[in-house]
């Protein structure tokens, strides 16, 4: 990491910490994970299943809502707000490259979201594991959940920064972030569910539908985690987790692809900002 990126990173990460973002996100995610874990511990005995594995599955479904929201809230104002406050002009008047500013901000915010996820899920996993007991499968499922959650957070931090660079104004960036969250996390699934019910069995359900699901980063995250847990109860479009026409790793590749595209576009749009 060169020293200018390190400077941007340090500044951005310090602000995330001082704004209590990391603490708030950790608190929210931790409470969610614990609640699900303790609820699962109550059921686990009856189902004779590993509690940590079950919790990983249910937490994957919930994280899809919470993590993108946290990541977008953290990043949407980052460039637009600095344009409005005039501080971006100061930054860009120095010899720093625009891609360095984008990458530094992205790395710091993705690290902040990642840190919150690791602390929250790590602690909750420890508590649930100690209370209900678990095996190697449970621990692997849980670690997989943490790792992919961090990746999901990074993708949505990237999306938030891209929107911030695209709009250049805080109010518009906020609207775009809310719209994107609704679209990718809520409406997309509803639309797919409607399509699959209308189309029934056939080429669409077998060949097109699975690709449409992994094309959405939020769905790709959930699908990967559920497909890797055989015992997970699945419903709705997640039923696909049992009938995937491609290996689950493809979902992970899709997530990585999103990250690459979002970062490339974000850097490109940041170069066009007139501060």
């Amino acid at each position, binding site marked *: 990491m060169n*020293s*200018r990126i*390190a*400077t*941007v990173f*340090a*500044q951005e990460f*310090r*602000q995330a910490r*001082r*704004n209590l973002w990391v603490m708030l996100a950790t608190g929210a995610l931790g409470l969610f994970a614990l609640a699900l874990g303790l609820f699962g511990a109550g059921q686990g005995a009856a189902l004779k299943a590993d509690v940590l594995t079950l919790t990983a599955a249910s937490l994957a479904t919930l994280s899809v809502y919470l993590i993108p929201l946290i990541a977008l809230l953290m990043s949407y104002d980052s460039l637009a707000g600095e344009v409005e*406050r*005039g*501080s971006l*002009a*100061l*930054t*860009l*008047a*120095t*010899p*720093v490259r625009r891609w360095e500013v984008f990458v530094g901000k992205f790395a710091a915010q993705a690290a902040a979201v990642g840190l919150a996820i690791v602390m929250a899920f790590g602690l909750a996993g420890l508590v649930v594991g100690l209370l209900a007991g678990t095996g190697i499968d449970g621990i692997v499922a849980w670690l997989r959940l943490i790792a992919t959650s961090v990746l999901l957070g990074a993708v949505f931090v990237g999306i938030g920064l891209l929107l911030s660079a695209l709009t250049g104004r805080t109010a518009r960036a906020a609207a775009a972030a809310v719209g994107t969250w609704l679209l990718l996390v809520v409406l997309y699934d509803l639309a797919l569910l409607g399509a699959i019910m209308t189309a029934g069995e056939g080429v669409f359900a077998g060949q097109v539908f699975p690709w449409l699901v992994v094309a959405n980063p939020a769905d790709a995250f959930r699908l990967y985690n559920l497909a890797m847990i055989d015992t997970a109860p699945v419903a709705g479009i997640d039923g696909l987790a049992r009938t995937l026409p491609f290996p689950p790793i493809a979902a992970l590749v899709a997530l990585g692809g999103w990250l690459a595209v979002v970062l490339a576009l974000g850097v490109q749009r940041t170069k066009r900002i*007139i*501060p």
Partner: protein
Amino acid sequence: MTSPILDISSVSLSFGRLKALDGVSFAVSAGERLALLGHNGAGKSTLFKAILGFLAPQAGHISVTGHAPGTDPARIAVNYLPEVVSFPRNLTGREVLDYFSGLRGAPRRDVADLLSRVGLADAADRAVGAYSKGMRQRLGLAQALIGAPRLLLLDEPTSGLDPVSREDFYEVIAEAAGRGSAVLLSSHSLEEVQNRTDRVAILAQGRLCAEGTVAQLAARASLPTTIRITAHAGAADDLHAAFGGRRINGCRLEIDCDAATKLSVLARLGQHRQALSDIDVAAPGLNDIYRHFSGRDRAEDRT
């Protein structure tokens, strides 16, 4: 002869049909302070953004220490203070300067010295959110002094400051110029910059209307001196007939004359001593000079 630090030649820049800059040329040398005067929307901020390389002129060219704006040598040479800047409220003054030092590759050990140069040594470790408006502006100035810049661009640096802070501000700027920085600052008021800068340039509607020292501008404008006469009751008509000029009301008259004929007019007025109740002589002020060049007086006469 050394080449100027900032050289602007026939720069034009428009946003769609709006001509923000129209054939602007001037230069600033090392150690020189040039004040750019203009109303809101005259093109000052646009010019600054062009010098920083954020906006590309459609015609003409700008060079900073001989380099194109936005290139590394130009960016290293220029430090900038925008008209409105708010630093992150939850960082301390020292952290803000650490950040910009890092981006400029300047040593961080100079930060403490910069803070004390602008009088913020005691507030260095307090959050910027708790700073007063004047302190924030001084922090901005300290930021602009990082790494001994060769060109200082200050966009209305003293707007909203009280007179004492303003005085301090210009002292720091003079000190920087003394160390060899070229300074280009923008302002609304000729009065404010007259003894604090070496030259002024007046920008109106994107065009450079005048450039030079304040004394040169005053001579070039050759604005009339106005003699205001208050006459005794009934005598105003006679005076008006004898001297011409403008009738203000029943007993007052205003006569415009240039500096050379002022004394002879006054001598002739002396012969009408019995008709006069009072005489007031108003030489053109700085604001009149500014308005003369920026074209506002003509606009106001029409309305």
